[in-house]
């Protein structure tokens, strides 16, 4: 399963990077969203996908049976932060489109005589 997941993660990263390199602002934002999904799955896979029960202390479950809690804790933090970043990006895109009238990154590179 981990092998398949690794390939899927690579695929997610590939799609994310491809989208982030395009010129359209909204595609870049979608790309960052995909990137965080890929990162979350990567964290989960690196810890190992084994474990027969969720990491909640229960009667009659031995310590080795719990799924690895550490990646889960990290991912939980990461999910919230990626949400914050995505929403910030979205509003930034909305405002800059409203002010500047374009979402083409090439036209958003500042004035010609920037120094």
């Amino acid at each position: 399963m981990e092998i398949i997941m690794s390939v899927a993660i690579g695929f997610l990263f590939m799609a994310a990077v491809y989208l982030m390199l395009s010129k359209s602002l909204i595609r870049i934002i979608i790309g960052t969203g995909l990137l965080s999904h890929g990162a979350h799955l990567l964290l989960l896979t690196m810890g190992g996908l084994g474990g027969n029960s969720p990491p909640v202390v229960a009667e009659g479950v031995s310590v080795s049976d719990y799924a690895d809690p550490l990646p889960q804790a990290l991912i939980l933090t990461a999910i919230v932060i990626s949400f914050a970043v995505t929403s910030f990006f979205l509003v930034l895109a909305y405002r800059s489109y409203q002010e500047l009238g374009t979402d083409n990154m090439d036209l958003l590179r500042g004035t010609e005589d920037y120094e």
Partner: protein
Amino acid sequence: MSFVFLIFLPLLAALFIPLLFKKVGKIHTGWFVLIVPVILFIYYASLLPTTIAGGNLVSEFQWIPSLDIAFVAYIDGLSLLFTLLITGIGALVVLYSIFYLDKHREQLHNFYVYLLMFMTAMLGIVQSDHLITLYLFWELTSISSFLLIGYWYTRDRSRFGALKSMMITVFGGLMMLGGFVLLSIMGNTYSIRELIPQAPQLATHDFFIWALVLVLLGAFTKSAQFPFYIWLPDAMEAPTPVSAYLHSATMVKAGLYLVARLTPVFAISGTWMWLVAGVGLFTMFWGSFFALKQKDLKGILAFSTVSQLGLIMSLLGASAAGYHIDNIAETTFKYAGFAAIFHLINHAVFKGSLFMIAGIIDHETGTRDIRKLGGLMSLMPISFTVAMIGAFSMAGLPPFGGFLSKEMFLTAMLSLTEFDLFSMDVWGVLFPIVAWLGSVFTFIYSFYFVFHTFAGEHKPDQLPKPAHEAPIGMLISPVFLALLVIVIFFIPNIVGDWLVKPAVMAIQPFLYSSPGEVDVHVSAWHGFNTELFMTLGIFAVGGLMFWTLHKWQRSYDRFPDSVSLNALYDNLMFLSDTGANRFSKLYMTGFIRSYLVYMFSFVVIIVLGTLFLTEAFAYDVTNLAPIGFYEIVILIALIGSTLTILFSKSRLTAIIALGAVGYSVALFFVIFRAPDLALTQLVIETISVALFLLAFYHLPQISRKEERMRFRLGNAVIALGVGVTMTLVALSAHSQKFLPSISEFYKETVYSEAGGGNIVNVILVDYRGFDTLFEIAVLGIAGIGIITMIKLRLTKKEGQHENK
């Protein structure tokens, strides 16, 4: 007493200067500053008996013990002499500056803060025994010199001169640091005192010659030796007290100090002797020769300083001969070291007074152009007397201190012809000849300085201000220095015993075990010998050439400006400036995509490179989780929706597909037994999609018209690279686990230590509570940013740019 802290006294005092300047405006800030060097001078003078007896004092203060870096103040004859010069001349210069700088018009707080900073730096250089702190203080003098030269920062020439001095001296400083590091590698210590006894072993080391050249580069740039001297004339844009203090009496002598201090380490080498003596002597000639080209009073003094520094440098080089001579007391080689230190004192005294006179003339007539000056003798009699004493001492006339050291200089140079090592027996004869020529020009420019300013025809119509004598306060310092010049002539042996011999002992510790063994007796008259005839020759030829100066001075204009060292510096600066600009424009395109491409390419190269170079790549098929039916279904959904995003032409489809990816991830969390994650992901994904749809109304349609095929292909290659890299990283990370996971600890202690059942929750709020705290902070900051962007608007005013 731990006098190492006294080094920082000026810096400490500098903290109060801005306050005093703002609050006590009635009293010139200089009066407060004056206290510092006076106190220091008195304290350090009280240490004189120790060094006269040949002793030394050490005071230490740990700075970075883990790196073995400490402030070690080491006081022996050499450092005490420099310390007294720094504080003594410092006090006189501050006194002079009180009358030179107007308390209403000038930014005195800046000036005195820089000056005090410099004082600390300079004391640090001459007292540091530790090479790294020496370097630290060395660069601090470059920085304070930069600030002081650029003190009148609205003038172009000031800024240019400041930058030039900084570029050259900091370049030298960095080279010197390299030399220090090599020294410490060879000797396994940063302490100069510990390096000196190892000198014979160091000389056989491979790095020795490199260390020598690098250290000399530092010394030569700082002491304005050929070809690095070009910064000094431009540094004359500084206020005159600064020129008198930094650029003649103290900072430029730091290079001499370094050479003197490290002579015991390097002097065994013939390269050292040739480089120090040769470059010094050539600089002496070059400086004196071009001093006559100058039209600016301070320009003349700048070149004269270059020349005199060269003279002292050559004497220090010649003193290295003492290491190869048995029974030095019976030869003339003993004079070089003594003459170097003796002339260093003389030069500080007479050049200080000359600079102050140049400042007075500038102050009272409004110009320093020697062509406009003349006939000031009757108007400024005291200034004239001081200038004459200083200049005659510089020219080497009796009865002034300079005469004595000049004679000894000639003796030392003559002694080199008798030296039979390092091909000196063939080329040594050049030394007295060049020295003599340099002395002739020194004689001429000294007279040029005095008589073209004070004698001749007075031209009141060319002066911006009517000339008159300076106020009495401004004259105190130069008159005092001029008196010293005469006093030194009459009591040279007291100066010798108190200051010079202890310092000579520090330069030649292998030869003398106490200052009393330095068997040099200074006398004005020592019979009819070669030196005397050389001196008479200097007076005769110099006098004659000065008499006919107006006939041949114009020939200096034939030297083209375009092939000078200054032009070389200007071109180098221009080329590096435009070159760097062009180069950075090459990759700083302003397109965000370019930057992302750099980043992703480097991630791929570095990660893949590390994976394969360190053989970290591993592929392990044991210990895998089983593949289930549901997993495959979700996986297909995930990949399908990702593909939909990639190929969709409508933003609505893309957003919904992104939501589908998020929900698939949430389902993965369910399957892989992460209920908390699944819940959070579901909630967040729902809100995200809602947000996207909200913003969607205001956002433009996805358009890919402007993206050409090549562009997309390039993106695809990079994207594929990143994807493959991540897959390999994931595989390797999964396949090898070198360290036991901390998870086991969490699992075992979650109930006993933290009293919670949900391990993930406990980790977040207890074990790693700060993570969560900062996560909330990030969320808060993003929220503030969002509100700001939506709610706040810059009010556009008429004629005002929004983005400025």
